[in-house]
Structures are given as structure tokens and as C-alpha cells.
């Protein structure tokens, strides 16, 4: 599994701390000293550069940060809404596509072809284009019964794009379940559908949880793209504040919010990968 490379040696708990202490007390002291010197030099280079005063005024202005942060945090709820709705839909749509693609037999070829065409198309088009095309294009058709709301079309675009990625992740999981599992289940008298539901998918999904979370971190960030077609979410609110003050601190505040949200997700992913690894190396069934 490619994810193994990321986990490195058998770390438990906080991996930064584990790394730091792996060389004993002397090693830790050296690591700390080298860290202090390294970052100290960088900090010194930055703050003594000729443009630092300008940069500090433009990006790290405390007053503007305090003024803009509450508004941006409120707008960030829109991002959270966007990706929570999108994530739930993506899990379902992508699974359906992955299952379609793994259907066997020549009769079902059209479904497989459709699933392949879908993933090829939506992984190929930049997300920003899908959002523009659907966001302004679909409502302009003025069809009755078709919602015009930019939130609706923004979320739809994200679901379409990310489902293509996530379907591939699912498919990798399904393919990774050994064919003998299916053969065994079928020989016990389980139907093809039951086998898929109770034997293949539970194993497949468990294996792909880390890469799934990885895609969702990407989705959380891309929720900012929905701003392009009108809704005021965190990035748009930051742009509004930036345009009013000609100062970039609101962007830094927004970046901070996104990082605060994605870091727990990233750590959770790391932890899941490590747990998975432990289970497998413990010699469990697999």
C-alpha cells in the first residue's frame, strides 16, 4: 500500500514528539538547538528584509484581524454547510459509480462505460469551470422546476467533481479485496448483491478511509470556489474586507480558519493509517 510510505516507522501517539525523542536526550537537545537556529535564521532573514514593514502592515495587521475575524468566522459556517452537504452526497454518488464500474459481464458493459466516461470527464475539467458552467449556465436555461440558487448549483458542481475522484478511491478499495473472498461468499450461497453488500464493500470501504478523508480535506478547501457564483462564504467575506481596507490580513485570517479545520482531519487520517497498519502487522485476518 502506498500509504505505508507516509507512516514511516512505527510511530505511536504524537509523531513529532516521538521523532524528537527517538535519539535520546542528547539527540533531542541537538534537534532542538538545530531547530532554533534554523527557524531563528529564517525569522531573522524575513524581519530584516527591506520589505518586511510593508508586508507586516499588509498581511499581519492586528486591528484589521480583530475587526474582520468574527465576520469571516460567521461566513465560514457557509463553507461548513457546503462541504457537509457535499460530503454526504459524494459518499453515496461515488459509491454508486464505483459499484457500476465493477459490475461484471458483457451485458452490463454500457453501465461500466458510463461510469468510466463520467470519471474521465469530471476529473478532467477544472472544478472552477464546472462551478461557472453550472452556476451561471444551468439557471440561464430558465427551465421550470430547476432551482436557480447558486448554493444549489455550487454544491452540485462540487459533488459531480469530487464524486469522480472518490469513485476511483472506492474502486481501488473494491479491487483490493481478494477475488477468493467473493468466490467463498458465492460458494456459501450468497447472491452477487448480498456478497457485494456484506463481504466486499465492508472490507473495501475500511481500507480506503484514509484516502477518502484526504479527498475531503481537498473538498473543504474547494468549498471556497462556490463564492465565485455569489454566496458570501469565508473567502468572499475576506475579499470584501480586503477590498474595503486594501489590506490582506483578512486573507490570512481565512487561511487560518481553513487550516484549523483541516489539521484535525489530517491528524485523524494519520491516526487511522497508523491504526490500520498496526492491525495488519498484528497478524489479523487479511
Amino acid at each position: 500500500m502506498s500509504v505505508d510510505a507516509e507512516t514511516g516507522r512505527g510511530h505511536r501517539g504524537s509523531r513529532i514528539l516521538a521523532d524528537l525523542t527517538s535519539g535520546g536526550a542528547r539527540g533531542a537537545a541537538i534537534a532542538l538547538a538545530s531547530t532554533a537556529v534554523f527557524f531563528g535564521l529564517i525569522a531573522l532573514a524575513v524581519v530584516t528584509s527591506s520589505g518586511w514593514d510593508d508586508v507586516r502592515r499588509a498581511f499581519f495587521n492586528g486591528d484589521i484581524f480583530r475587526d474582520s475575524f468574527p465576520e469571516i468566522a460567521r461566513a465560514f459556517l457557509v463553507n461548513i454547510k457546503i462541504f457537509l452537504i457535499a460530503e454526504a452526497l459524494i459518499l453515496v454518488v461515488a459509491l454508486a459509480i464505483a459499484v457500476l464500474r465493477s459490475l461484471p459481464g458483457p451485458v452490463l458493459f454500457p453501465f461500466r462505460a458510463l461510469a468510466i466516461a463520467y470519471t474521465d470527464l469530471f476529473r478532467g475539467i477544472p472544478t472552477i469551470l464546472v462551478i461557472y458552467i453550472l452556476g451561471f449556465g444551468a439557471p440561464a436555461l430558465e427551465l421550470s422546476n430547476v432551482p436557480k440558487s447558486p448554493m444549489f448549483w455550487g454544491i452540485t458542481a462540487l459533488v459531480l467533481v469530487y464524486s469522480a475522484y472518490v469513485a476511483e478511491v472506492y474502486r481501488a478499495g473494491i479491487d483490493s479485496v481478494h477475488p477468493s473472498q467473493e468466490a467463498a461468499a458465492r460458494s456459501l450461497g450468497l447472491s452477487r448483491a448480498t456478497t457485494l453488500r456484506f463481504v466486499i464493500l465492508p472490507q473495501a470501504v475500511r481500507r480506503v478511509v484514509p484516502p477518502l478523508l484526504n479527498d475531503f480535506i481537498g473538498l473543504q478547501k474547494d468549498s471556497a470556489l462556490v463564492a465565485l457564483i455569489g454566496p458570501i462564504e469565508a473567502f468572499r467575506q475576506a475579499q470584501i474586507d480586503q477590498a474595503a481596507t486594501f489590506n490582506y490580513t483578512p486573507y490570512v485570517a481565512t487561511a487560518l480558519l481553513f487550516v484549523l479545520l483541516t489539521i484535525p482531519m489530517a491528524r485523524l487520517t494519520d491516526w487511522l493509517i497508523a491504526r490500520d497498519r498496526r492491525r495488519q502487522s498484528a497478524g489479523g485476518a487479511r
Partner: protein
Amino acid sequence: MRLKIALLVVSTALLAAVATGCGGSDKSASTTEAAAASCDKDTLSLIKEGQLTIGTDNPAFPPWFGGTPPKGSKWKISDPTSGEGFEGAVAYAVAKELGFAKDEVKWVVVPFDQSFKPGSKSFDFDINQISFTPQRAKSVDFSDSYYNVNQALVGVKGTPIASVKSAADLKDYKLGVQIGTTSYDYVVNTIKPDKQPSVYNNSSDVNSALKARQIDGIVVDLPTAFFITGAEQVPNSVVVGQFPTKKTPEHFGLVLTKDSDLTECVDKALASLKSDGRLADIQREWLSNKTSAPVLK
């Protein structure tokens, strides 16, 4: 283990001290040059010697700019180098006043949000319907006014918003505005609609949203409102009305680098264009039929 954690904490604290300690170096004296700036063409401090570099956004829209971009030109919709359109004409009039011939003027594309980024600028001045606000003036220099502007409302004929008579009637409508504009400020601070306005990156996106009926109306400056309706940027659109002039009228200014020597000279040029009526002539030529619309009290 405990010792190691303590070490980690101490070193982190040290780092933080380094970072904050260095942050305290306040810029001492912002040397405001004694106003000895002569406006002699040869002594002006310019981006590129011997030429006046003027910035505006691309596409450049009528009635602010005019002319047809020649084939292969980077400009879309209008051609700033033609000197046509209100801002095109003002830019060349200021240039002439400063002593620059037409072929000594060079135009650069400056998206709205680039005109005020920190550090050096790519233009000597920028002319792009940028309204003066005290907040903006902290980051860049503004020239004196070259145009006093009112905000206006664009809607689609036959929809409820087209029959609105006052700003107070707009509470229930979904309005669209371009980001960073005083139109946005006007919607949020003066109209205060119950529905959150939709905000777009550029004017084309605002128009697209009205075309798609995702918004009920656009708030934009009056001459641009007439361009949207007149040039069918949004089919069947109509200028519903203009909003009343504020106590201190909103005005457009040329944008220059903060504390630029050039600001004073540009102001002198504008003053001379105003005093002998040339600015009024330019306005009559390019904006005369674009200033009358019912006032939305």
C-alpha cells in the same frame, strides 16, 4: 520524557521571543518629502522614464472607454489607447497637461485588486472608476475628483423590481454587486436589504447572475447601468432609477502609489482641466445621455 517536553516548550518559547522581538521595529519616520515637487515633465519620478504609464482593467467598458480594439490587441471591448470614452479622454487630457504627447502614454492592464497591492506599482496612475473612500486612501494616494457619481439600480423589464419607486422598497429583493465596489457598500450600509446580497468577482459575473435570474437587480454606478441596458449586456434590462446623491458626493479619483510625488502634479492638471471647462466638455461628450434617471428616494 518530561525533560524532553520541557526542552520542547523552552525552545518554542525562545522561537516565539525571537519572532515577536523582531516584530517591534516600528518604521520610525515616514519621510514626507517637503512639497518641493516640481511638475516639470523631466523631473517627474515615473515607472519608466520618458513615458506615462497608465493602468486600467481589461476588458475596458464603455462609456468609460471607447474605440474598437484593433486585431491582435490585448484590449477587449474598448481600446484605451484610442483616447475615446470618458476615462480615456480624461487620462489623455491629464497626460497632455503633464506634458506627455499621445505616443508617450502607455497603458497597462491592472485588475482592480492589483492597483493597491503592497510594494511597487506597475503604473504611474490608475483610472478605473475607483471611488475615493477614507479607508482606501490609507493605502494609496487618490487624486482629486474627476467625476461625481451616483449609484443606480438595474432590473429586468416586467419583473417586480422594475416598478420599485424607493430604496426602502428594495428590502425583499436579492441584489447583486461587484466585490470591492462602493456599490457593495451602498447596498450593505444604505439599502440594507433583508436578503444577503450576492457578490461577484467582476461586472461580467454580476451580469451573468441577472441573466440567470439568480438575482433580482444590480446596483452599480449610473453610467455603467446605462451601458448594461444599452449594450444588451443583460437582455431586456432597464435602469430602474438612481439613488439620491449623498451629503458628500461619491467621486472617482486617479489612484497613485502612496505618498507619490506625482499626486500633486496630477491634482494640478485636473484643477486646470476643471477651471477652463475642458473636463466638463469631456463629460458632456461621453456621459451626457447617461446621467438622467428617476431618483429612488
